[in-house]
């Protein structure tokens, strides 16, 4: 589903990515762990076709990200640090706008379904400006999964979420898992990220230093592993 080969990215003098090779089959859920500045966000933005790689090839679902950008974009659901939402519109109107942009059929149904998934139905008709940080993050998650994406890119999804919202996010990922939707999540929060995904990778200073399955490894073990690599 996702193939990255020798991906390098320079921002002027700084090289954010020093050759990333990554393989991911359909329906799996990869968690990328790493300190801040390891290039996790740049990797996700390249996958989201928002940033062009300086070198290397990136292909999603068989399409090359750089050349066939239009074909790749409808398959993606992106959650970034910023919420992509409009403050002066209500939650429902934001989703309605993105729904129309993706040309979804039976939009109203889908919006209420998605709002139930993130438990925002009661606040649907309030201006997003009046939402708290956690509610905006949950609405952004709702926007990311609105158009049945094949690949979900989550950049630090846990910021601003309380205990209750985190468990809801995990049920959501499991639910998407069942619908064979691939999920790539980047986070520096070892505890909460671990039990959500089945494959883990550690990224440090622009390179993937460890790649393995998360089955059976508990948090302490993983923490030692993480410190070993990141140091």
């Amino acid at each position: 589903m996702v193939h990255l080969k020798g991906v390098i990215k320079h921002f002027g003098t700084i090289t954010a990515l020093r050759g990333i090779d990554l393989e991911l089959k359909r329906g799996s859920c990869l968690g990328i762990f790493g300190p801040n500045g390891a290039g996790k966000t740049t990797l996700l933005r390249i996958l989201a076709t928002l940033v062009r790689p300086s070198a290397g090839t990136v292909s999603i679902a068989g399409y090359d990200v750089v050349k066939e950008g239009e074909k790749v974009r409808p398959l993606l659901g992106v959650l970034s640090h910023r919420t992509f939402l409009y403050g002066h519109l209500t939650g429902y109107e934001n989703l309605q706008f993105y729904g129309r942009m993706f040309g979804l059929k039976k939009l109203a149904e889908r919006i209420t379904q998605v709002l139930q998934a993130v438990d925002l139905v009661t606040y649907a008709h309030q201006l997003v400006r009046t939402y708290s940080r956690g509610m905006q993050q949950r609405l952004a998650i709702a926007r990311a999964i609105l158009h049945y994406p094949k690949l979900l890119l989550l950049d630090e999804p846990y910021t601003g979420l309380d205990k209750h919202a985190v468990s809801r996010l995990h049920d959501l990922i499991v639910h998407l898992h069942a619908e064979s939707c691939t999920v790539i999540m980047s986070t520096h929060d070892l505890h909460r990220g671990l039990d959500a995904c089945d494959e883990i990778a550690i990224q440090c200073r622009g390179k993937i230093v460890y790649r393995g399955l998360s089955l059976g490894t508990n948090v302490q073990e993983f923490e030692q592993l993480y410190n070993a690599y990141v140091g």
Partner: protein
Amino acid sequence: MQKWWSIMFFLMIFPLIYLCINRVFHAIVMYITMNVAIMLVFIYAPTEKMQGIVQKIFYFHVSSAITMFFAFFLVCVASIMYLWKNSDWWDAIALSAAEIGVVFCTLVLITGPLWARPIWGTWWSWDPTLTLTLVLWLIYVAYLMLRIETYDPKRARFAAVLGIIGFVDVPLIRWSVEKWRTLHPKPVLIQEGGTTGLTSAMLLTFLVCLGAFLLLFFYLLRERISVAQSRHALEVLRHDIDEIGVG
């Protein structure tokens, strides 16, 4: 007799305002005075010989102009108090007075040309008083644009300073009326020698109109202040909810 009558009337206004502390009573008193004012303007006041019926705009035009000056004076005072005391109540007064002041200023700028058209033949003459009233309007609209954003103390302080500086323009208008008495009519109210250019009946009508407008101003002010304060309370409440992480 006529001088005694107007002074007594003027004194009577202020206790009235004090009396109207509770809203409903205030609304009733305002309603009555407004009706009395209209009745006086159209029935009691004699039509001016020279300008004819159109002169009746004078009553409301000048009384809203005076209310406008009073509003902007209040903004200046409230801004000074806000900078000194730093209490939200004064800031809410400044904001409300500015908004109502701009409403009355727009009224003055609409009724002025409407009155000028039949008498001077042009809608607008670049006359010092008209221009400076226009500049006043621009300043206080800018003041309101500054306040549109959500409540934050830094912005409120900037607005307070602008409120004070904006008010410096008002005495300039007063000075311009005396200094460059070009097209704009002589200050009909207070002429040299203290004799007003108005007959006693006109003066009485004018005073009633002025009283009615001032009452209306205070009523609007009270309403707008409660809006500003509840909006501020909402902001604070929403902030606390964020803190507790209820969302």
